[in-house]
């Protein structure tokens, strides 16, 4: 074994303990400054409000404002609706697409490409593609709807349609992502389980309900978790397509943090909404932990 000088460690760090701390130091410094400190600082911020140049302690005032103000109530409703739709999409849409992908040909990379391509594209590009699709004048969507005899709409300016419109953009981009996990789960199932079910003449629905669904339940749990995590962080398409409008119909929690914190400089309110998001994330992490513990015990 050659020992180039460049890799020589000072003699003081010969013990493996000292080496370990040295190796961990770069990561720990950045973890402390950009993950731990911000959590502390945002909790502090959520309990304070700016009065002129100073911050004064206001207790739970910021949280009470968020839960009582119709504008932020609307944001919470939007977010809950968006996340719920995402959860359903990631589980049911993801599983159905994966079942379709798992049929027949062994090597169907070509057929998977459309669903992988959208995952890899920036949300900003995806959103501008859909800005074009939704456009009342040149948009293809209204042409298609018109051709099918359905009513044309001004998608992004209609308060009832704008949020579903954003969701369609997210669906288009992320469906393939969630199906990847189900595809991996399906491919790890023994072949004879699925084939036996086919031979006995059971319907597709029975097979899905009684054989596939129970077998992929760990994946369903995992996909639900990342589905919620993922959708809570979606904000780029709001910037490009609607900026929270029309009438606050498409403002999601993270966009609200941006608006309050960076446009109107209400750091107390923005911090409080961040803390609410953190609480949701923490709850999900605990649920996942409990679930994993239980699985380990049963196995």
């Amino acid at each position, binding site marked *: *074994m050659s*020992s*180039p000088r460049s*890799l020589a*460690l000072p003699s003081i760090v*010969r013990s493996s*303990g000292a*080496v*370990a701390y040295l*190796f*961990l130091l*770069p*990561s*720990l410094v950045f*973890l402390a400054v*950009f*993950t731990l*400190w*911000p*959590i502390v600082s*945002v909790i502090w911020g959520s309990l304070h409000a700016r009065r002129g140049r100073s911050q004064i302690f206001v207790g739970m005032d910021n949280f009470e404002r968020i839960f009582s103000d119709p504008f932020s109530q609307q944001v919470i409703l939007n977010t809950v609706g968006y996340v719920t739709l995402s959860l359903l999409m990631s589980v049911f849409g993801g599983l159905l*697409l994966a079942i*379709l992908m798992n049929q*027949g040909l062994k090597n169907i*990379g070509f*057929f*998977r*490409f*459309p*669903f*992988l*391509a*959208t995952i*890899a594209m*920036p949300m900003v*590009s995806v959103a*501008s*593609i*859909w*800005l*074009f*699709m939704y*456009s009342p004048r*040149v948009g*293809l969507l209204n042409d298609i709807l018109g051709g099918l005899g359905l009513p044309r709409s001004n998608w992004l300016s209609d308060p009832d349609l704008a949020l579903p419109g954003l969701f369609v953009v997210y669906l288009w981009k992320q469906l393939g992502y969630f199906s*990847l996990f189900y595809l991996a789960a399906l491919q790890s199932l023994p072949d004879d389980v699925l084939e036996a079910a*086919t031979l006995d003449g059971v319907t597709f629905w029975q097979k899905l309900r009684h054989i596939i669904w129970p077998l992929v339940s760990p994946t369903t749990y995992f996909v639900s978790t*990342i589905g919620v*995590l993922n959708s809570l*962080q979606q904000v*780029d398409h709001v*910037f*490009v397509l609607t900026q929270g409008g029309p009438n606050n119909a498409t403002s999601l929690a*993270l966009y609200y943090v941006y608006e309050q*914190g*960076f446009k109107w400089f209400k*750091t107390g309110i923005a911090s409080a909404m*961040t803390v609410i998001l*953190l609480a949701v*994330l923490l709850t999900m992490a605990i649920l996942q932990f409990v679930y994993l513990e239980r699985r380990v015990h049963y196995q």
Partner: protein
Amino acid sequence: MIAQRKSWQDILPIVALGAFGLVWMVPLFWTLAAAFVPTTELLNGGPLVWLQSLHFGAFEQAWSVAPFARFYLNTIIWVFGLLAIQLVTISLAGFALARLDFRGKDQIFFLFLTQLMVPATVLILPNYQTLVTLGWLDSYQGMMAPYIASAFGTFLMRQAFKQVPKELEEAARSDGANWLQVLWHVFLPVTRAPLLAFSIVSITYHWNEFLWPLLITSSVEVRPLTVGLALLVQSSEIGAQWDQLSAGTLIVAVPILVLIALVQKQFTNSFLSSGIK
């Protein structure tokens, strides 16, 4: 009879998947058409008219309206610069957690776990304030800072290093190599696959990143592609210059599309290992 039914069952899902895939690609095809065909012809003509009026003018315009060349350079510097730093931090930290004994290991492990639970996207407000304090606004290091420590990468490398046989490590140690040399000469050469998987996820994720760079950058010299495109979209009047916008969209998205077309299988596996990203 049975053979026939079997072949139907084989073909039908493939046809369905193919048709579904085609429908899925319609927005992309439409954007492609819009970038190469002037908007008036796009609306009034059919595919035959489109073919006759193909042009690259929209790309030239988009390229001149917004400084895309500079945005490209910025994206490449921040994405690959960050990746280089991350590969060092995750290898070192992953090695320490996998192969070294020290006090407080469980506590440190838990600190990394915190980052998995709390994605940086949610912490934009306090992290922005930290950058103000550090004087790192509008800089590459400011964009990179929240991602330099990567719990996902550290755990990925820890798993990989755990699987390296103890004998390899002991042979190198008894030859007098220190831990850094052991990591470099013994562990890293046999863990190229997880390093590559991490790289693919990191590149895709940060190439596409928008909100954080938007908030902290203000000059053309630092702004990445995604921010440049969003500003182009917002600055144009509704209904105007669709060809230019489509061209801009493609300029940003095509490199990533080419990358995944080339490494599709690797890409799939990398994203499966990532979970959260």
